[in-house]
């Protein structure tokens, strides 16, 4: 009984992280129409900046959000403003833009990863922060994991409220539905799309910081998380925030169950679910 509880709780904790990563990607694809393969590189940047500020400057990882958040946001914003905006005007149709922007995001992935490996090298790194075991209703879990779940939920909820109840949020939703009409209604489309891309990058950066508290980090870690994010986004339904959270938790629990049976099979299970899902229901759980 305790084992099952342990597996479930581990899955939920993992799922919170997955959800946060996926919300960022969902925002970038759902609104800005960029299937951002470099998403994981922003996670890697967040993780390695958190590692550096903790081990070199002794800064609390949770406090380094104040650096990582704005930094990744600005980076994402600038990338959209310069690169994807130009692609948007030169690509003839939305379909062409989708494939061009995906290829361009591969280029960004190469560039960021190479620069990061020049700065940080390719070793695996980690640090110990809040690694205290806590006992919750018979299951034992690390305090750091609990903190990450809390942060992931808080950020997700804040963002959900932002999108559903503010004026900018309304503009984002309008741009997601129909960019051309939203533009005619006075929404500054370029700014909204760049804002979404930047916010997605910032969420990835913060998720990277949270990941660095629980797992070892290195410069080549990005792509793995990008793929997990894509799977979760497809599972939950593109562009749906609640969908990303549901998808994240489902994948987290599946991952933790499969890891319990055979650790070598967890990635195989992820891809199998993904491939089956695309065949059976490509629009996902909360898809329109």
């Amino acid at each position, binding site marked *: 009984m305790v084992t099952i509880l342990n597996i479930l709780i581990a899955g939920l904790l993992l799922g919170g992280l997955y959800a946060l990563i996926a919300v960022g990607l969902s925002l970038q694809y759902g609104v800005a129409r960029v299937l951002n393969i470099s998403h994981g590189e922003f996670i890697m940047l967040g993780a390695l900046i958190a590692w550096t500020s903790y081990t070199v400057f002794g800064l609390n990882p949770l406090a380094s959000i104040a650096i990582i958040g704005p930094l990744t946001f600005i980076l994402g914003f600038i990338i959209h403003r310069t690169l994807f905006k130009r692609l948007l005007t030169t690509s003839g149709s939305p379909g062409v833009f989708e494939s061009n922007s995906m290829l361009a995001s*591969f280029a960004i992935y*190469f560039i960021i*990863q190479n620069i990061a490996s020049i700065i940080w090298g390719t070793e695996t790194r980690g640090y110990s922060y809040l690694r205290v075991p806590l006992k919750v209703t018979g299951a034992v879990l690390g305090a750091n994991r609990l903190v990450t779940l809390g942060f992931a939920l808080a950020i997700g909820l804040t963002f959900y409220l932002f999108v559903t109840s503010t004026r900018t949020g309304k503009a984002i939703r309008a741009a997601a539905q129909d960019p051309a009409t939203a533009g005619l209604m006075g929404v500054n489309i370029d700014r909204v799309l760049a804002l979404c891309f930047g916010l997605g990058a910032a969420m990835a950066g913060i998720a990277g910081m949270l990941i660095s508290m629980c797992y070892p980090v290195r410069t080549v870690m990005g792509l793995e998380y990008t793929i997990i994010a894509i799977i979760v986004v497809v599972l939950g339904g593109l562009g749906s925030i609640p969908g990303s959270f549901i998808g994240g938790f489902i994948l987290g629990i599946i991952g933790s169950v499969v890891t319990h049976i055979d650790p*070598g099979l967890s990635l*195989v299970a992820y891809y199998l679910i993904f491939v089956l899902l695309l065949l059976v229901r490509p629009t996902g759980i909360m898809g329109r």
Partner: protein
Amino acid sequence: MNPARVDLRKAWIAVLGLVVVLLLAAVPYALPGYTVVLVYTILMYIILTVSWVIFSAPTGYISLAPAAFFGVGVYASAVLGMKLPLPVVICLGGLASFCLALLVGALTLRLTGIYFSIFTFGLVELIKHSVLWYELKFTGTRGRFLIPVGNNTIYYVMLAILVTLLVTAYLIRRSRYGLALQSIGEDEEAAAHTGVNVTLLKVITFAVSAVFMGAAGAIWAIRLTYIDPYIAFDPLNSFTPVLMAIFGGTGQLCGPILGATVFSYVREILITKFPYYYMLLMGIMLLAVILYLPNGLVGLIQQWQKRASEGQHVDT
């Protein structure tokens, strides 16, 4: 344009092609070993790029599966290489990829646009991790060794695959199937309404393009002499052909050939001269191509030609 002139042009292309093939066939006799390896590496990338173009350029479905088909060829060669003669191994490598592509195509070509790309990308990772898991669980080791053969043998096999591929690609392009494929890319529903069996055509073309990737993988495995799932199913093998095709321009058959040749040559130089900045430079090149060369090298050359001929008209 009158018919005689068209025939003359066709004859010229055939003669030119034959001369190029003969020149390429003479390379191992005339040039040092390093150049032979360089040239067959370039030939390998041309094979991957052109076979990607056969399916993806006319239909507009961006396939990220080349690494899967290439990897299946690599593994077929590693498993069978010791037991069977080389030509059989190459053919079986192609056949294995063909079967995989038939299966994948039949299952997934209903997916549209970006979903198809994501799926094919996921497929590569699924196969890679499945093989990895299988090897660690059942054989207890990772990777396999192959018996090496001479560079010249690899070279001629590569050349033979390429020539077969180019003839196939040319024939498909010139036939009614090529036109039907083009119509799928322009408007799939309209193509179906005019009587094109859309699904069958897509699946068969997808599978035919996979044959050559598998065959190239089978011979490439022998050149590598040691392989493991990470080497065989390297996702870069999916992206490089796409990149090379766009770099060259996908409108005509000569575009991908030119793109793959120039790009793989530059790539070799970058890897040997700047191993630490290789990915950075590749990324910057990719961005530059997407932003400034939407029609590829061929588009650029055509633009120059047009400008030059306009200039002549002004003079006369």
